[in-house]
């Protein structure tokens, strides 16, 4: 049986994992390669490394970080942040990533999805979407809107239209972050996730709001997510993937239990 994936996400700045609430008050959380290996050992199904380095000089550091992290990692490994061209993607794949996650760059120039897909296969392209419910709409969920810059800038696009376009252009997966839930630790936005999951054929990864194991069970069931992203819940030893998956298994959610 196909299992639900628990994905560990590492936010990386200048080669170090950092953690903060909505990109402020960042705390150093350790070395990406060490943390990725630990998450893999503890049963994470996949690792996402999200580069939040703002400066151009930091980009060279990123490729080195990807290379170092990938070296001892034998589970799927995705990299996002700062990928604006097919060449940027190629460099990240060369360094050992299996998938790239693109967000603002895809909104800016949607052809990028097609280009990376053509060269590296649809399975290698994750389109990340930051969305917010539209409280003024009659149906705030299905009318949800797409934002960039950590939720600060509205793009003028509707979530469902953009998700369908991403699929049509050859995205292999959608990484959906609810800007309403992100950083709250109060649970994923299950309605929003289910709405996208029903609208597209490709798998949807839910992100934003994870705080407890029960939140994961909920987004897999009610949110019809194929995978869910955990970032802060795994840091500082709060919880690990093994513990999380044991709870999910007890709840009857199909998961890959580590040996």
């Amino acid at each position, binding site marked *: 049986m196909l299992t639900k994936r628990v994905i560990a996400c590492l936010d990386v700045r200048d080669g170090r994992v950092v953690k903060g609430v909505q990109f402020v008050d960042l705390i150093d959380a350790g070395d990406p390669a060490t943390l990725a290996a630990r998450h893999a050992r503890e049963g994470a199904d996949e690792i996402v490394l999200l580069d939040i380095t703002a400066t151009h000089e930091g980009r060279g550091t990123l490729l080195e970080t990807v290379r170092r992290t990938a070296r001892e990692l034998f589970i799927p490994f995705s990299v996002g942040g700062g990928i604006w061209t097919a060449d940027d993607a190629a460099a990240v794949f060369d360094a050992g990533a299996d998938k790239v996650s693109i967000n603002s760059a895809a909104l800016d120039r949607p052809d990028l999805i097609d280009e990376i897909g053509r060269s590296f*296969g649809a399975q*290698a392209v994750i389109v990340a979407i930051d969305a917010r419910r539209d409280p003024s709409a009659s149906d705030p969920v299905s009318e949800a809107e797409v934002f960039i810059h950590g939720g600060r800038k509205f793009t003028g696009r509707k979530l469902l239209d953009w998700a369908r376009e991403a699929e049509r252009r050859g995205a*292999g997966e959608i990484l959906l972050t609810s800007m309403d839930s992100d950083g709250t630790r109060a649970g994923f936005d299950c309605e929003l996730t289910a709405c996208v999951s029903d609208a597209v054929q*490709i798998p949807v990864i839910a992100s934003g709001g994870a705080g407890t194991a029960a939140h994961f069970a909920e987004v897999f069931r009610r949110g019809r997510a194929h995978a869910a992203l955990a970032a802060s819940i795994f840091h500082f030893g709060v919880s690990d993937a093994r513990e999380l998956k044991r709870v999910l298994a007890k709840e009857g959610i199909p998961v890959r239990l580590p040996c």
Partner: protein
Amino acid sequence: MIAVIDYKAGNLTSVMKALNALNAMAIVTADPEEVRRASKVILPGVGHFAATRLLREQGLSDAVRDSIERGAPFLGICVGLQWLFEGSTEAPEDKGLGMFRGMCERFPVGAKVPHVGWNSINVRPGSRLMAHVNEGEFVYYTHSYRAPVVNDTVAVTEYGEVFSGAVERGNIMGVQFHPEKSGETGMRILSNFVEL
């Protein structure tokens, strides 16, 4: 020396990295002569079945046939497994190697496609490639087309229907999943191949 064939289909880094971790001697090559000389051959691949056209155009199909005939172990991964069959409806004009009977087809309507994630495999006893892999262990898949179950299927997975997760006949082997991405289970399978 293991020849890992480069036919511009996706990304070879992961496979090479896994082979290095197993201390296997391996080179990436698109040279038919190097493929003929190699003691083992791996054909990785993600992406579209049409990419296999390059194998024929560059004389690599013949090199692989020669290598297999000589008895060198061959492992096709993902599209590399599909290429061992007669072909795929993804690119009907491009023939496969025809080592196994049947066509690869898209998953039936109803299941989410692509099939992405960790799914369990049921292994047939006696397979050299799948030795020491227990019933129900998990491997990582990412694909939209699948190969039918045939006499030489040595592992099956269920996703909407049952399909070939691994095939093996003598020195000819293929896996639909990605052993290089399947954690300890995958490394055990690759190691089985390396040590043949």
